């Protein structure tokens, strides 16, 4: 081989090596494109991708506002998450706001309104595009609640450390004015950017036998309603047309249930008033169990279940926080049917459901859908959502509602709910003392009622679970004053 040809011959392998290099780089172009263009979305959705999480935190999360005061807000932080969530009122609003954690979920309004608070709701899409184009930092919307801060404070003060729950509604609009559940917790503990500490707090609260994380007003194990269920029973009786307030029932001191050895008594352990018979109205005012057991027997399971469904039993609600469905049992035998007549056996309710029932009665039989959100305000203070009051149904006629109200007002004036009286205010109410078990477990002490002053009205439901049963510790002593305090707070504000 001559020198020249040898030099020429080197060109071919070099060309091949050039091709090899080109192929290698095409491979790199391909693998980069796969990651950055083709798989980008699925990578973004991988729950191990902390960048996605950081992105959501890089947005200034909107505030949650009650009566013009921020009860949840984001302040600049000096770490990589840029914003620190704060709950200045601590435990007072914890069950309303819920909490927002770093990648470990969120609850309450923080959860239900997450898209609005982070500015990712569809209604905010155009605003976000504009903000991006004009170089503004992305920010979420603020959520203004319907909560009345004085009512909320009154509920928390009146309930104190005791286990229980308080709900107050505006009967005309369905606005939730107070929502307090005890025991409670400090949501600030969940806002820490130290995820291990948050997990510790969460596990600790989860293992607490008192379940402080349960919002007892709308979720959790629910309560046996006891005698507050008689509001629904009275409504069902009057609505059926078969009964009036003057309808008479046998009045024994005790009654053995059919096909059973079980004997029921009135709470007084005596007859319901002096007579051989007792009217439905008197039985309601004095909260006697035996006449209501007979009422349930005569109305039948279907009529009661129908009335319960009309009041919203069996239906979950998003207000926007999820309200669990209360339940009236099905397939009842006769003795159990009679027990449900005064709210025992397997009737289970949320305090929200009891307040909704009373509110419908107070609002002439029209039940408004409960709602916690007053307005949603964009960062530029544009109102982007302003929920209108929504009618959920008409469980009873206006006439029946008026008759039930009259009975409830008598109950406060001269019956078992006298501690709910407020000078100069029309107050109607019903107490309840629900047995929750065989072994002398504490009763659930109930009060539900409404107050009306001029144009303003409020409906409340209160339940207290005392540590142990104390003689004389009745619902009129324990629960009714809490209801009165909340009614007063709303009507004064």
């Amino acid at each position, binding site marked *: 081989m001559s020198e020249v040809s040898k030099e020429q011959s080197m060109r071919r392998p*070099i060309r*091949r090596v*050039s091709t090899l290099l080109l192929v290698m*780089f095409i491979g*790199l172009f391909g*693998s*980069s494109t796969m990651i950055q263009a083709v798989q*980008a979305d699925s990578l973004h959705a991988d729950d191990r991708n902390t960048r996605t999480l950081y992105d959501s935190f890089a947005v200034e999360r909107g505030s949650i506002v009650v009566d013009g005061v921020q009860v949840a807000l984001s302040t600049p932080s000096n770490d990589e998450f840029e914003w620190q969530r704060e709950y200045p009122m601590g435990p007072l609003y914890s069950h309303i706001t819920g909490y927002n954690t770093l990648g470990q979920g969120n609850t309450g309004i923080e959860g239900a309104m997450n898209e609005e608070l982070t500015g990712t709701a569809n209604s905010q899409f155009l605003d976000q595009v504009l903000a991006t184009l004009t170089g503004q930092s992305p920010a979420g919307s603020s959520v203004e609640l319907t909560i009345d801060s004085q009512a909320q404070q009154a509920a928390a003060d009146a309930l104190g450390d005791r286990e229980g729950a308080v709900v107050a509604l505006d009967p005309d609009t369905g606005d939730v004015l107070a929502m307090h559940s005890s025991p409670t917790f400090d949501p600030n503990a969940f806002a820490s950017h130290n995820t291990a500490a948050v997990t510790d707090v969460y596990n600790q609260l989860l293992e607490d036998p008192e379940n402080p994380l349960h919002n007892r007003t709308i979720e959790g194990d629910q309560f046996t309603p006891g005698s507050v269920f008689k509001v629904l029973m009275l409504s069902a009786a009057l609505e059926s047309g078969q009964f009036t307030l003057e309808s008479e029932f046998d009045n024994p001191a005790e009654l053995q249930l059919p096909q059973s050895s079980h004997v029921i008594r009135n709470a007084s352990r005596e007859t319901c008033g002096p007579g051989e018979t007792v009217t439905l109205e008197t039985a309601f005012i004095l909260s006697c169990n035996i006449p209501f057991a007979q009422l349930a027997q005569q109305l039948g399971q279907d009529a009661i279940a129908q009335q319960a469904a009309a009041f919203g039993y069996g239906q979950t609600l998003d207000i926007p926080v999820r309200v669990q469905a209360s339940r009236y049992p099905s397939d009842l035998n006769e003795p159990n049917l009679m027990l449900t007549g005064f709210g025992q056996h397997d009737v289970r309710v949320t305090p929200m459901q009891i307040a909704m029932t009373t509110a419908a009665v107070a609002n002439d039989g029209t039940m408004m859908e409960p709602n916690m959100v007053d307005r949603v305000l964009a960062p530029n203070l544009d109102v982007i959502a302003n929920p209108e009051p929504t009618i959920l149904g008409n469980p009873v006629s206006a006439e029946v509602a008026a008759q039930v109200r009259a009975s409830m007002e008598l109950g406060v004036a001269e019956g078992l709910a006298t501690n709910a009286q407020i000078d100069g205010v029309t107050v109607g109410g019903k107490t309840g003392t629900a047995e929750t078990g065989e072994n002398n477990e504490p009763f659930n002490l109930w009060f539900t009622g409404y107050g009306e002053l001029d144009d303003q009205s409020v409906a409340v439901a209160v339940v207290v679970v005392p540590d142990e049963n104390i003689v004389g510790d009745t619902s009129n002593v324990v629960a009714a004053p809490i209801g009165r305090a909340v009614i007063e707070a709303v009507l004064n504000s």
Partner: protein
Amino acid sequence: MSDQTAPSPQAQNALQTGIVQLRDVTEAIRVRIRNPAKLRNLELFLLVIAWVLAGGAMVLVQLGALQRVDLFPLQLAAGLGVLTLALHIVLRIVAREADAIILPVATVLNGLGIAMIYRIDIADGLSGWDAASMRQIAWTGIALLVAIAAIVVVRNHRVLARYRYVAMAIAFILLLLPLMPGIGRTVNGATVWIGVGPLSFQPGELAKIALAIFFAGYLMTARDSLSVVGRKVLGVRFPRLRDLGPILVVWAMCMLVLVFQRDLGTSVLYFGLFLVMIYIATGRRSWMVIGVGLVAVGGVAAYFSLGYVQRRVHAWIHAFDPAVYEAQGGSFQIVQGVFGMGHGGLLGTGLGLGRPDITPYANSDYIIPSLGEELGLTGIVAILGLYLILVSRGVRIGFQGPDDFTKLLGVGLAFVIGLQVFIVVGGVTRLIPLTGLTTPFLAAGGSSLLANWLIVALLLRLSDSVRGRGIV
């Protein structure tokens, strides 16, 4: 009188020589005036663009991450500008015909690297000499001074062919240094560092240049005998058995690196370099077949006997498997890098606005995902394009070089950059298993910068010998 009229032959010769010399000088001046260093002017023009790109990136990093601008990024940019301008001026004097594109491309890459290293410094809250960006600009200075020295000292690169066995010895010493007790250091399992006091260095980076010089020098002389064919097996003509010695020695060397230094990437890099250079020298595909066979044997043996090789392969194939992801030495880093690149998408988050610091080693081994996150696929394609241009300038020397040594060395050095980019970028983008190699010019680290600027110096010197063939 005759003395006056007839000058002595000696004087006449001297006069003629003087005239000839004068003519040479004036000719040279005339050439310079008529042909005013077109390549260097082009280089200066491209350099200005490179400075603007690099300086802009550094300022944008600070603006994006800190929402303010101070003098520091401008100082970094000015440092890079002064240093590369110095090399440019040196080229105007001692290598006027050198390639005009290599220096600007290397400058952009070096500058983008400093910008991203500075960006990670901001995320980590480092400043002063703790900041990797400060050390990087200092190393850039050292690297460019060494590169300038190399270009000035080595006026004729063909001299290097004479020192091929010296180069080989240097390469071996450099490779063995990290294994020496006292100065060797093991970082992340790989024993490829030496350290004296606070300074540490990866001698393997320099060894690849010494090896390229040795291979080019050796193959230049041995190509004839290596080209002689022996038996024909399965349609491929194989070399004679006695010529197999060198390739077996190199293979053994790479296997030693693999076993004792636990450095898969370097091992593959050296062997790939040798294979390509022997193929170019001989034009015999059989060498490639033998080489790939040896790689296969070594690879399979390493996979079954070396735990870290096995883990690397698993972390590559099953990267998103939760068990592999969470395992010690598993795929956490790979997956985080991929998340980062995905986060950048097509256009990137913008410099200073992403979160590249989540990925471990975001400013060295993982600087490509960091750049991918903040500059997007667009930026990655541009960076890979710059590498491709750099590599193609080296390959061009292979086509147009005046002699075998120049051709072999040019293509060899170009290929070593291309292969290194392929191994690193392919590793972080999951095209191939991840191995620890630095990204040329971009990654934080002095040894890598020094080695790659030396390669640039050599390529510039080689290209200067490709005279009169125009700009492209």
